[in-house]
């Protein structure tokens, strides 16, 4: 129900914006600038570059509004556009994608301990540290899926690749993350039966 409502709201907002409604334009900005920024910062470490890209994106959006197609997901549309912008800028700027902090600190001893508690804070922390060390595209795909809730088909379009490749990318990421649980799996499953 709530989901349907928000979809019609989105369609309506987009239509109003396309007709040149400045309030609708401002509403779109307000609603999405935060998550766009967050997404951008996960792809490119340079926050100023992300801000520039977002500004460009919205200026373009307004300029092109009459030629835009209808969309049921403004978020999807904006993410795809931002990613393209960022890639253009990164190419122009030759900034290498780097994540600001990498602290993959864990020891096997700790590992087993964490397995006992489901999704303990420490374990999530370890997983998060490893997420950040994944190859950028794997990280991006997995983040778009689980953090942003995009469908595979949408991720494929955002990342400009086919759906199967997205699945492969995510599978490879999962495989790497799974290794963290390693051999402790047995100990772990035992714990449930004790």
């Amino acid at each position, binding site marked *: 129900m709530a989901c349907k409502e928000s979809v019609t709201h989105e369609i309506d907002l987009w239509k109003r914006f396309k007709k040149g409604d400045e309030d609708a334009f*401002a509403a779109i*900005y307000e609603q999405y*600038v*935060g998550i766009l*920024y*967050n997404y951008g*910062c*996960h792809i490119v470490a340079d*926050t*100023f*570059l992300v*801000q*520039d890209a*977002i*500004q*460009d994106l*919205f*200026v*373009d959006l*307004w*300029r*092109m509004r*009459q030629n835009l197609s209808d969309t049921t997901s403004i978020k999807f549309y904006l993410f795809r556009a931002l990613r393209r912008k960022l890639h*253009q*800028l990164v190419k*122009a*700027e030759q900034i290498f994608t780097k994540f600001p902090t990498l602290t993959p600190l864990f020891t096997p001893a700790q590992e087993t301990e964490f397995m006992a508690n*489901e*999704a303990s804070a420490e*374990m*999530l922390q370890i*997983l*998060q540290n490893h*997420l950040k060390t994944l190859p950028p595209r794997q990280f991006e795909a*997995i*983040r778009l*899926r*689980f*953090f942003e*809730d995009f*469908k595979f088909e949408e991720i494929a379009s955002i990342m400009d690749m086919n759906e199967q490749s997205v*699945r492969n990318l*995510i*599978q490879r990421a*999962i*495989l790497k*993350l*799974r290794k963290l*649980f390693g051999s402790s*799996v047995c100990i*772990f*499953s035992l714990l*449930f*039966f004790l």
Partner: protein
Amino acid sequence: MKFENYTVKDFLLDDRFVDWVKQGTEDAFWQDILTQYPQKRAAITQARSIVLATTQLPVQSLKDNDLAAMWQKIQWRIQKEETQDTPVRGIGQRWWWAAAASVLLVVGWWSWQQPHLSQQGVTYEKLVSQVGVQKMAEQTNENTKPLLVNLPDGSSVLLQKGGKLSYATNEFNVEKREVYLSGEAFFEVKKETKKPFFVYANELVTKVLGTSFTVRAFKDTKQVEVIVKTGKVAVFTQNDPEKKYKLANRALSGVVLLPNQQIVLDRTNLRLSTPLIAKPERLTLPAQNLSFEFDDVLVSEVIDAIEKAYGVEVVYDAELLSECKLTAHLTDEPLYDKIKMICQALDAHYEVVDAQIVIQTKGCK
């Protein structure tokens, strides 16, 4: 049941599973799976953790003022585009703006030497020859070090190597302040709203009321650039249909640039564009980068900074002032205003003797 063979990966690729972890949908169904397939408990837990870890990744959030500043810039660019682009207000898509906005015109433009520009376009020589009978004062910098030029109104100009700057001695600062530039210079213009300050550089006219900015206009390069450090600057081209009005008027109209903004004029088609990213590192002069923000700093340090920034020599009794500290927030004032403010704080006065600034003081209490 398919779940029998499910691995962590399979759970994670199952949309229903992800929805359950994230939103708790179909909880009964998944609880059932857990009891039905106890051997899958570990895999499910791991899959859950991976989803949860991803959803709880640290969030980079925008500060409120960044959010507002970005929106302002977006609106500013849209407005500028609409007013500048469509003389008759209405619908009209202008594509050059997009092209200009997405291309970085920064790297390598020095080398795009276009000798023919100096014949066809507006150049320093042509501009100066049009001034007419007046006596012109001209400064040329043939050294590699920037040359400080103090204008009669108190504004200061740091002229870069190979730069030329001139003005009509009997007209400057009467109704307005007009200078002609070839090459690159950094201006700190004394605030004087009644007498606007104009820099004529090739095809570009830069108009300010009181601010600091850089103009780059070489005879044979394809572009003219203006980079603003503080205050507001308006720019328009020599062929602007409203040029007369803009020259006569006191207000800043046309394309108005704000601090850290930059504009580039393409001399071949006389189009103005803003590069996406201002390049602060390209501001080569110390005065352009220095913020003269001093909080409780020794006078000698303040004077050192000024000497370095402007390449001038300041003479003062170092012993008398050795203990004196100063709090001063100096930004875009011309050199002499900066000196004046320092002198006020020290209860001192200054004189210019043979290109040296001599500060006379009785020390501080």
